[in-house]
């Protein structure tokens, strides 16, 4: 869209500035595009080659909903979920892979969503805490956390529950010691650990499908 500076209704200042920045960064990006981009096909690279300032197309499925998105390469999966898809159940704790609050499932495997770029998950199926319940019916692990007081402040809880579900599915919940070892990637500042372990043991012992 051209910036019309001679009409009665000039574009708002912000818009002008925005357009200018957009154009100038595009030019910069083009100038920066190195040779490999031009010969991407020849170099046997995917066509998903983006200049630093460009957004990359990304298709993925989140909690059963397919999304076609545009993301900056440096957007983490966590920021994509929270900021672009507004699924704020997944929490940002440390943002450095040390606390586990951002735990989600990618193709059924638990991962720290803060430590991977969203673009790396093209075609993957993501499950967040919002996707765990069946409508109004809580997931058995959610029910067990409520029953056993598996939280105090609740900030780590979505990550704890996603991790706990995976822990049982992986077959790593056979004893208290094993649960503590395989849940060690989820830190609880309030110290609700005994109750978290109790919740996981109940779900594991109940033999329900998780």
């Amino acid at each position: 869209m051209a910036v019309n500076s001679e009409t009665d209704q000039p574009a708002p200042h912000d818009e002008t500035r925005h357009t200018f920045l957009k154009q100038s960064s595009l030019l910069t990006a083009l100038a920066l595009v190195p040779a490999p981009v031009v010969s991407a096909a020849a170099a046997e690279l995917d066509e998903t080659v983006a200049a630093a300032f460009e957004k990359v197309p990304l298709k993925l499925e989140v909690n059963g909903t397919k999304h076609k998105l545009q993301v900056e390469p440096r957007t983490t999966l966590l920021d994509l979920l929270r900021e672009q898809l507004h699924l704020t159940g997944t929490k940002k704790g440390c943002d450095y892979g040390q606390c586990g609050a951002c735990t989600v499932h990618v193709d059924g495997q638990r991962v720290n969503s803060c430590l991977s770029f969203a673009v790396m998950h093209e075609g993957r199926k993501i499950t967040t805490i919002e996707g765990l319940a069946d409508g109004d019916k809580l997931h058995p692990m959610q029910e067990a956390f409520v029953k056993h007081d598996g939280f105090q402040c609740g900030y780590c809880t979505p990550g704890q529950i996603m991790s706990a579900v995976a822990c049982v599915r992986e077959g790593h919940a056979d004893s208290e010691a094993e649960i503590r070892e395989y849940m060690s990637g989820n830190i609880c500042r309030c110290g609700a650990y005994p109750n978290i372990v109790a919740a996981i043991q109940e779900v594991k012992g109940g033999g329900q499908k998780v």
Partner: protein
Amino acid sequence: MNQFQYVRATKPQGAIDVVAKDPNAKFIAGGTNLVDLMKRGVMTPQKLVDINRLPFNKIEHQGNTLHIGALALNSTVADDPQVQAAQPLLAKALNAGASAQLRNMATVGGNMLQRTRCSYFYDTTMPCNKREPGTGCGALEGINRMHAIFGFSDKCIAVHPSDMSVALVALDATVLVSGPQGDRRIPMAELHRLPGDTPEKDTNLAPGELITAVGLPDAPFTKHVSYYKVRERASYAFALVSAAAALDLDGTTIKSARLALGGVAHKPWRVQAAEQALVGQPATEASFRRAAEVAMQGAKAFKYNAYKLRLAPNTIVQALRTAAAA
């Protein structure tokens, strides 16, 4: 975080070509260390080549070697029945590292190539010859309680943080690499290097060289193995000192032994003199203590890590004791 160009590789050669030609390009696999370092501004690659779709994730026995693809996930390798049967020490070392979530992301190749967790390397306001050559080593006269007791230089006293690599070096693994000059094989003990005057180089890989697999030769170390890791909490912390021990026993006599240490040097630290000291000896406390003494020859501490001079031999003895009893 700096902006960067993202490229998804579909063939190994394309990925290698891009990284070989551009010193500001990096491969990315699991990303568990690189993304962390980029968020902190410690590493600022201008281009990332995503290698996750390359076909390097198989685990298979070929002849007398267990081949593990470089993109196999740490959790997949640790849970693999072939690995658990033929190389249980590797599975134990993997499970001692990181958390279940991180092991679901981290790959074999990426685990080897993770950077040191030296706090001076991570803090961009501090001097660090590894991060910024020529600025000095902040740890040398600083808070060096996590640092090396073997093989350091006056340019760098950082340690390599990988648990998996300690087991791989003990197990005589070979690293398979593809690069701009073709394929080559590197003994695991020669993948990582000592800091010397160029601590910015963690490994002997050439620009653009991509780890494609690791090969572990069949060995008699299928039962009496231990990965003993001492850390500041029971799980999910880097090692203060760790020891990978493997014994081949004939009754109570040690036929052969492997011993390597983590958390003590710029590379996984194999102690072959200590292994030799165990051969032909009874699997007793006295033999283990003697081997630990041999292993510790040449160790030197800094102001805050002198505890490692006692912790390391005790860790060795505990690892050997646990291995013998396994």
